[in-house]
């Protein structure tokens, strides 16, 4: 199916907009240039509404007013979207026209009243367009399945969400859905079920005609089939549940890891404890070192070090006194001795009461006074002599005050540094601990362990159901053989037996075909997607440090991004925005190519987050004309001027049709010309990406080197 044209009336601000789409094989690109707020999304929604009705719109847009906010209250407005398309089958194409019309009456405050929407599907015949018989919705759904509308019609953000946003489970579902629908696998599954139904019916009829024994065998077979169906369904349910659990587990793990990337709370607490202990030790050592310092300062060694020269002068004086025999003084002992002997050294009588004795006693008293000072001097002299010797020895052994002070001071300073550093480290860790939401960590840990337990439980159920299913299939196969032997022996209508056998054999054939196709299709899509993605992101896998090594579509329908070193990148968290877009577009393009489906791919603002080489390669990849026998396709891009910038030449090569949308709300700030219209509307003009006209000219168009087209067709 290829879009040819659209005519949109009274849909939002699209009062009367006609668009044409390229159907040229060699120029598959249609560009609709429009700045923000110029009606791109409205056009996308109008096409969806035209083809699928209100259900075709995104859920949030289904209940909003479709008429312009400027439409007068109470006046019914006819909204109409006409979509012309062609259906290509082989070399033949048939033209169709969809006309959807609805009356909407604005009621104020954005409320409205809606009439029934009317839909017509017309087909071009030799005598003009004629209504197609049957339900038009069914026919349109056949051409462009509504469940795949997110593949055909999407905006830049949706492109990103296709790959990420709801975890692996959501992605698998979307991918599986797209593959089943686009590759026609669903049709084969339904055909297989229909054939099984025919087999059962024939078997039942045959058994009824042959009597109780065969009937009993048929019932047993039917019962086993039912059991297999139920078990199969249960298995599918548990598998789906396990996938959902796995998604939840992965999300919790991711969140927890992110939280813990700040630091593991337990590890942080242990670290804090260790540092607190060290800090206490350092502080204790600080006190010890201060004490050592005090002791050193009060030592004699300190005096020698601090007042050594003065002390030496005093010592010299004492030394001289000693040399002269002044110290130590010995006259006192001599006088006392003489008084005791009552005889002087000059033989004079020192008897009690004698004059000589009185003189000697007087001399003794005087000498005693002098001796006290001399005693001190003597003591000081000895002590100084000893102290000096000790000091000199200490200097020799580097245990003197200066050396000691140096050591203590160094240890003190180092210890103080340690205290400071440990304090700072502690502060950092305490801040870290404060920034971790303990409650959140606990909640996530609980959620994770809960999900792990549930995952294990689901895995166990899957194992049990698989065993059960294998046993049931074995029993079914035996019962079937038994039934067929009994059927042969019984008098059953040959036609009934033949019908049953044919339906059964056809069912086997379609089952085998489906299995092959599923594996084969997935592999083909995977290879093509990988080629395209790697081409867009421009990764050379042989290059050391290349982030992406490739992408794979797994048999479980998940898209896996392979990273260097056998690792994988989570598309939800570890792939950047531009690469996510590249990945989704590669998947959609690969799927379309493998399916051979001819369908439009309409993307609103696809190039956000992309620039430079990636942007060029992305547009190159998604607009490249089909090669060889590959089916033609159509791509419609809604682009802003900045998205177009740098890829003008590429667009020139690929574009078959271009138009520009503008909104008069942008005058005078952005639009240069005022339109002859007093209410907000969107107009389309035929300007290409290189042109401007009176409708679309914007104030900064000079920067894009546009040329005047002259006139307009809006």
């Amino acid at each position, binding site marked *: 199916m290829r879009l040819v044209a659209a005519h949109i009336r009274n849909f939002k601000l699209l009062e009367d907009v006609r668009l044409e789409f390229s159907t040229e094989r060699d120029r598959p690109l249609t560009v609709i240039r429009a700045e923000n707020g110029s009606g791109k999304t409205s056009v996308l929604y109008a096409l969806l509404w035209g083809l699928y009705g209100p259900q075709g719109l995104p859920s949030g847009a289904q209940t909003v007013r479709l008429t312009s906010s400027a439409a007068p209250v109470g006046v019914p407005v006819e909204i109409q979207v006409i979509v012309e398309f062609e259906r290509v089958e082989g070399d033949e194409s048939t033209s169709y026209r969809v006309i959807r019309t609805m009356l909407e009456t604005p009621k104020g405050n954005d409320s409205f009243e809606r009439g029934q929407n009317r839909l017509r599907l017309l087909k071009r015949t030799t005598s003009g367009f004629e209504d197609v018989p*049957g*339900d038009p919705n*069914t*026919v349109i759904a*056949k051409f462009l399945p509504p469940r795949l509308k997110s593949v055909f019609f999407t905006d830049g953000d949706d492109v990103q969400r296709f790959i990420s946003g709801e975890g692996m489970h959501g992605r698998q579902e979307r991918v599986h859905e797209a593959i089943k629908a*686009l*590759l*026609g696998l669903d*049709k*084969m599954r*339904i*055909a297989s079920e*229909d*054939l099984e*139904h*025919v087999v059962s*019916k024939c078997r039942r009829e045959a058994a009824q005609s042959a009597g109780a024994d065969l009937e009993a065998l048929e019932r047993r077979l039917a019962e086993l089939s039912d059991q297999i169906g139920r078990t199969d369904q249960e298995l599918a349910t548990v598998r789906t549940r396990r996938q959902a659990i796995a998604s939840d587990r992965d999300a919790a793990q991711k969140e927890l890891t992110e939280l813990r990337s700040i630091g593991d709370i337990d590890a942080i607490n242990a670290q804090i404890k260790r540092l607190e202990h060290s800090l206490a030790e350092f502080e204790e050592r600080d006190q010890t070192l201060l004490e050592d310092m005090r002791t050193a300062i009060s030592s004699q060694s300190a005096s020698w070090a601090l007042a050594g020269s003065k002390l030496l002068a005093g010592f010299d004086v004492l030394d001289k006194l000693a040399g002269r025999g002044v110290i130590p003084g010995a006259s006192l002992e001599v006088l006392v001795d003489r008084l005791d002997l009552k005889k002087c050294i000059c033989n004079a009588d020192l008897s009690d009461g004698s004059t000589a004795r009185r003189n000697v006693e007087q001399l003794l008293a005087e000498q005693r006074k002098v001796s006290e000072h001399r005693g001190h001097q003597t003591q000081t002299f000895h002590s100084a002599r000893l102290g000096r010797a000790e000091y000199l020895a200490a200097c020799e052994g580097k245990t003197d005050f200066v050396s000691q002070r140096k050591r203590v001071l160094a240890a003190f300073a180092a210890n103080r540094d340690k205290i400071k550093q440990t304090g700072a480290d502690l502060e950092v860790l305490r801040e870290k601990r404060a920034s971790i939401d303990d409650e959140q960590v606990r909640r996530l840990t609980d959620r994770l362990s809960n999900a792990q337990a549930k995952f294990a439980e689901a895995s166990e159920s899957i194992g049990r159901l698989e065993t059960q299913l294998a046993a049931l299939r074995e029993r079914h196969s035996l019962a079937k053989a038994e039934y067929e032997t009994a059927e042969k022996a019984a008098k059953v209508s*040959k*036609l009934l*037996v*033949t*019908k049953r*056998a*044919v*339906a059964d*054999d*056809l069912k*086997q*054939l*379609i089952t*085998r*075909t489906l299995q*092959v*196709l599923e594996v*084969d*299709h997935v592999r083909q899509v995977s290879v093509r997607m990988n080629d395209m993605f790697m081409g867009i992101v421009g990764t050379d896998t042989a290059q050391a440090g290349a982030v992406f090594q490739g992408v794979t579509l797994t048999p479980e329908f998940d898209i896996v991004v392979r990273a260097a070193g056998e690792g994988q990148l989570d598309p939800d968290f570890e792939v950047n925005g531009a690469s996510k877009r590249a990945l989704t577009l590669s998947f959609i393009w690969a799927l379309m190519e493998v*399916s*051979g*489906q001819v369908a439009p791919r309409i993307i609103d603002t696809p190039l956000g987050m992309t620039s430079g080489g990636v942007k060029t390669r992305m547009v190159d990849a998604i607009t490249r004309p089909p090669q060889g026998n590959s*089916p033609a396709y159509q791509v419609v891009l809604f682009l802003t001027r900045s998205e177009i910038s740098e890829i003008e030449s590429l667009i020139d090569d690929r574009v078959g049709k271009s138009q520009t949308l503008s909104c008069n709300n942008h005058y005078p700030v952005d639009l240069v010309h005022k339109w002859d219209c007093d209410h907000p509307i969107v107009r389309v003009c035929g300007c290409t990406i290189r042109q401007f006209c009176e409708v679309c000219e914007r104030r900064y168009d000079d920067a894009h080197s546009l040329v005047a087209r002259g006139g307009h067709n809006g």
Partner: protein
Amino acid sequence: MSPDRQFTTVATAQVLNCPKRYSEYHTDLVNLLVKVVATQAEGLSDGKRRAEVLAIVEAFGNVVITKIRE
């Protein structure tokens, strides 16, 4: 290659694994399968579609009835 053509190609390869009694009818079996799948394109209800599948099977049954018992 379109999905329909791929389906036909794979089914043609798989038909070789069908019972010998169909050895003369390989092309017919594949065509039959294509017809069964095509019933879904007509927008019929499940019941009507299955009746149509039954009719297709019956018609083929009548063709191969002489072979099937062999």
